[in-house]
């Protein structure tokens, strides 16, 4: 891997890698978010009360559920395609299925979170 980068952030954002690139970037953002969540999890295990309050916040739940769920589903797709290499030809179809599963699960979970937040 080279040690220099000649690609600006704006150029990178305009890169037309389409669905595989979007999942790649979101997997990394999700992983970074989960690393923060991991720290909070340890603090919650240690009994830090304010962290439990953070976990109970509906906005926190919606944001981290988005990243966590996507990271988990996308990771499963990556693992399946890596372990069964003949399936790699169907990568784009797998991404479409992945998005469908993710959106269904996330929409339902977000609905439940918002309903509970509104006291329903």
């Amino acid at each position, binding site marked *: 891997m080279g040690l220099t980068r000649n690609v600006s952030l704006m150029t990178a954002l305009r890169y037309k890698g389409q669905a595989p690139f979007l999942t790649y970037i979101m997997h*990394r953002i999700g*992983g970074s978010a989960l690393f923060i969540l991991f720290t909070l999890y*340890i603090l919650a*295990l240690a009994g830090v009360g304010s962290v439990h309050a953070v976990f109970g916040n509906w906005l926190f739940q919606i944001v981290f559920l988005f990243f966590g769920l996507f990271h988990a589903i996308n*990771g499963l797709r990556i693992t399946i395609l890596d372990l069964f290499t003949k399936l790699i030809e169907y990568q784009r179809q797998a991404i479409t299925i992945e998005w469908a599963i993710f959106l269904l699960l996330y929409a339902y979970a977000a609905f439940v979170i918002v309903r509970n937040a509104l006291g329903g």
Partner: protein
Amino acid sequence: MTATAKPRTLPMNKRGLNFESIMWIFTRLTALAMYAFVIAGFIGALIMSQKMHSNLADILLWAFFPNANANPLVGTIWITGLAKLMVIAFVLVVSGHGVHGVLEIIDDFFATPFARRWFRNGIITYALVVNVIAIYVIWTS
């Protein structure tokens, strides 16, 4: 890669056994291990919920926080011990997977060897400290 290009992959026997290959396998196996732990924890909590008539929120709380005060099995020594061991293993797997992932991201975004080395040292130190705290807290709670 254009939309019509075929994605390519290299078979394992052509990759060779080096650090990159080992970490590649490690990342996949730890991901699968996390799914296994989550499913096992969830099933265990479901069994408890049948006795306690509890809701999904309690189930998830017990699955991931076996030392929670509301957990009816706190005090049941052998199950509590098993749950603690499972959560410790889960934490270790998560931190191993997470540290490797963060290091990959850092390697991609920080170009100089100096920055890479210090971020690498920092993240690994952080993970070690957090793991020690986590194991202590889980086992003694």
